């Protein structure tokens, strides 16, 4: 069973298909991927109607026959409104986690509102997927810093450091029990190093599919064919860890 831990309902898909994932799911079928964690895209932009964006992600999930696991997003800048929206996403929409993209959203991980949002996620035991690998707000070390500051909250490095910060990601993944990583961005040698040096229960595979219309799954899925690891580890990384962490 393969579960993709990092996908988006991209703006291009939303504009074309509203909340109907039929065509989107065909790409998953092509690669024998059973389920996917799905995050928004439009909702990460400042001028969007975030409430509506979260509703669309939920609708996409409903239309997927249980294959797409919805993740909420909120903007820390919107203060109490973001708190209420996050509570709504967990209580009413049944979403399985929070996505924050400080680079796109323009928020520092040191923003005071982070304290409140991290607390809510801890209260509901919901993981937070962060974009990481990009300065000045989304370095892997900055997300790792949140993991150190909020030990009761579960954090996920959405890219495990991309091409430049994967060594930093390894260090924080090994330092913080509450920090997980998605293999989606480092090159082959970087991915092999992560797999060789980080707890196999803390690593997931993801494709970033859906941000645009291109099929990003083929490359990122088959890259793992060149990784040296046993079947037990491979099964965990390709699906079991994601299933456990996001309670699928």
């Amino acid at each position, binding site marked *: 069973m393969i579960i993709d831990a990092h996908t988006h309902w991209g703006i291009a898909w939303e504009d074309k298909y509203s909340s109907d994932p039929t065509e989107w799911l065909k790409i998953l079928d092509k690669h024998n991927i059973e389920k996917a964690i799905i995050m928004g895209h439009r909702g990460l932009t400042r001028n969007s109607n975030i409430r509506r964006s979260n509703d669309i992600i939920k609708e996409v999930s409903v239309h997927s026959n249980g294959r797409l696991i919805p993740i909420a997003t909120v903007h820390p800048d919107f203060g109490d409104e973001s708190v209420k929206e996050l509570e709504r996403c967990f209580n009413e929409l049944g979403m399985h986690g929070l996505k924050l993209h400080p680079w796109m959203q323009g928020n520092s991980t040191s923003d005071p509102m982070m304290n409140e949002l991290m607390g809510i996620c801890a209260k509901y035991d919901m993981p937070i997927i962060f974009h990481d*690998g*990009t*300065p000045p707000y989304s370095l892997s070390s900055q997300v790792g810093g949140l993991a150190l500051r909020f030990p009761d909250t579960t954090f996920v490095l959405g890219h495990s450091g*991309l*091409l*430049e910060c994967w060594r930093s990601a390894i260090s924080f993944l090994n330092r913080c029990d509450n920090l997980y990583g998605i293999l989606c*961005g480092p*090159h*082959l*040698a*970087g991915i*092999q*190093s992560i797999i060789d040096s980080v707890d196999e229960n803390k690593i997931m595979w993801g494709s970033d599919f859906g941000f*645009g219309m*291109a*099929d*990003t799954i*083929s*490359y990122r899925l*088959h*890259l793992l*064919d*060149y990784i040296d690891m046993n079947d037990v580890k491979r099964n965990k990384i390709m699906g079991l860890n994601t299933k456990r962490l996001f309670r699928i």
Partner: protein
Amino acid sequence: MTIDCYVTLGEERETVYSAETLIRDLDKAGVEKAVIAPADREIAVLNKSGNDFIYNAALKFPDRLIPACTINPWYGVEGITELKRSAERGIQMLVLNPTVQGFLINDELVNDLIATAETYKLPVYVHTGPHLYGAPWQLTDCALRFPDVNFIMGHAGATDFWNDISHACSVTNNIYLEGSLARPFIFKAHIKGIGVERGIMGSAAPRNNLVFEWEQYRTELSDDEFLPVWGDVLASILPGKGGWK
């Protein structure tokens, strides 16, 4: 002609890659040649020994391996001397890695080195992508300063500068785009934007698997539309046009 524009040889922190293994991989991938360059420590500090190692590796397979050299511009006059020594024995490309070597590509620090490369008609491969020292527009600034030098934008700004590429390449014609690490689905869009006559294939092996990279890029970029990207574009800007001995 098929040429892989960027392969490093030797022992790095995560990989070990010999000339013999590279030849095996080129054969598997159906690729005729590769440009080879020093890696890691030999890019940062031990340039001369790295350049010698690469030159000697290319000598073993002169019809398949094309040597590049690297110089850290902080070496100043000593670096210029090393570039001249390398060029006069046939190296075909200068590789600069601003992040690893600690400089900005549009800093005047690098001017003398690039001016020397120009006298030997060497293309200059510049690693891009790292945020502070690898921005595509920094390279554009440098390329405008040296309009008669051909620059290769290594990794096409991957990961985060993908949205700058078409504009950064649009204001000057002496920048070519190399796609290793950029991933085929993004590189294809870049090449469609700037033109196939400026696209260059590279694998960044052994950090990537050369055979896999060529397979994936060839699947995404059809020969009908992108054939020159596999080597003809690169050959056209190398002083030996793909040969060197």
